[in-house]
């Protein structure tokens, strides 16, 4: 049975924890609104880009640039794992890391060479334990203020294209958390290089009409593909950041509620203990008086 003083201290400490979680929840809620707006605003561009790419690749056939057609091999895989910079966001990082781990294991079982590039500190920490020798790079997003990921996305896009041109890998897969709504974030694996237009991209039936290209089909593809990759990276970053805030908000909401329940039960325990002590003192006084 803890003493009255112990109980009092615990109640005070849980109360201050509740204040912190409540504050974190409110900060996450405010950030979520902005992150969500940014993610939603970026979607039309990514979708149109995918549709344009789908149209182009349908007519380009197999002879397109390497970024589209691939190197002809799929021996070396680069897995880009995108997680948050900070924890305390419920299962957000854990789910993404779990998918990454499964993907890496499956590739290794197939006898492929796997390289890992991590974006965000948390994924790096968790995967370092198992796959420390597979890491080829890391992108630090901790300095990013708000939702301005554009320059980071461009840098990462350039980096990926360069590594691909240098023959460092054949296939790049991006693993990130897709933002469905505040309660659901879906860990997603998406093939980045060779660029594959998503199956659900709307292609327009040209009804036999022939596309005209200016300056030329290859020239357009060559400018389009690196941008497509950057766009994919950017939208993944935005989705991931919205998901992180949503997940943190939910987690902190739960934590605040749990702390409240804990305070209630501790207060009850404290009151009982105090009453018991009063009763005990009374009994002592009365039995002392009777003994006289």
């Amino acid at each position: 049975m803890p003493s009255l003083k112990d109980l009092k201290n615990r109640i005070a400490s849980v109360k201050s924890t509740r204040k912190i979680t409540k504050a974190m929840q409110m900060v996450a809620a405010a950030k979520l609104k902005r992150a969500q707006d940014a993610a939603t605003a970026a979607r039309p561009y990514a979708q149109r880009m995918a549709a344009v790419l789908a149209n182009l690749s349908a007519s380009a056939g197999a002879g397109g640039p390497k970024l589209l057609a691939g190197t002809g091999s799929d021996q070396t895989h680069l897995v880009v794992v995108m997680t948050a910079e900070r924890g305390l966001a419920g299962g957000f990082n854990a789910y993404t890391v779990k998918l990454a781990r499964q993907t890496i294991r499956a590739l290794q079982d197939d006898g492929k060479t796997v390289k890992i590039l991590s974006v965000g500190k948390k994924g790096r920490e968790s995967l370092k334990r198992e796959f420390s020798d597979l890491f080829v790079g890391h992108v630090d997003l901790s300095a990013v203020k708000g939702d301005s990921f554009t320059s980071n996305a461009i840098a990462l896009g350039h980096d990926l294209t360069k590594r691909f041109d240098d023959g460092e890998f054949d296939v790049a897969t991006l693993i990130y958390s897709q933002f469905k709504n505040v309660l659901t974030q879906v860990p997603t694996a998406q093939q980045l290089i060779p660029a594959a237009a998503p199956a659900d991209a709307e292609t327009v039936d040209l009804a036999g009409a022939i596309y005209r290209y200016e300056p030329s089909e290859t020239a357009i593809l060559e400018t389009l593909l690196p941008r497509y990759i950057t766009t994919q990276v950017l939208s993944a970053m935005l989705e991931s950041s919205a998901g992180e805030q949503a997940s943190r908000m939910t987690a902190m909401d739960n934590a605040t509620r749990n702390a409240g329940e804990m305070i209630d039960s501790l207060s009850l325990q404290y009151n009982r203990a105090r009453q018991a002590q009063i009763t005990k003192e009374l009994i002592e006084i009365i039995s002392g008086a009777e003994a006289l």
Partner: protein
Amino acid sequence: MADKLHFSLVSPARELFSGEVDHVIAPGTDGEFGVLAHHAPFMTTLKNGVVRVLEGDTVKMRIFVRGGFADVTSAGLTILAEEARMLDGVSAGDVQEEMDATLLKMQALDKDDSVRATLQEHFDYLESLKAVLVH
């Protein structure tokens, strides 16, 4: 003019415009081109310049774009711009301020930084935007 063209202009940050218009004139790398409804499928890269949206014979909207692509299909015209902003309500002074800020950021970076190249593009964009505004 009975038939309308479905036109949408998107930049990575947001969708600037989406709707039915009569006529769009855009700056292709190989020259300006106009698109009306039922244009043949066509795709081109864009250079920095002004996209004009016409309603009948009057210019309804002017949007300044940096690079990107224009895609004409039977579904309409889509412009994917790297950067875009409405020309109305922008003053040369604002643009000059932004140019100075970009220049400062650029000077803080390494020469071979890929971000610097992006900022340079942004700077060039602002410069040509200012040129349009001053005239």
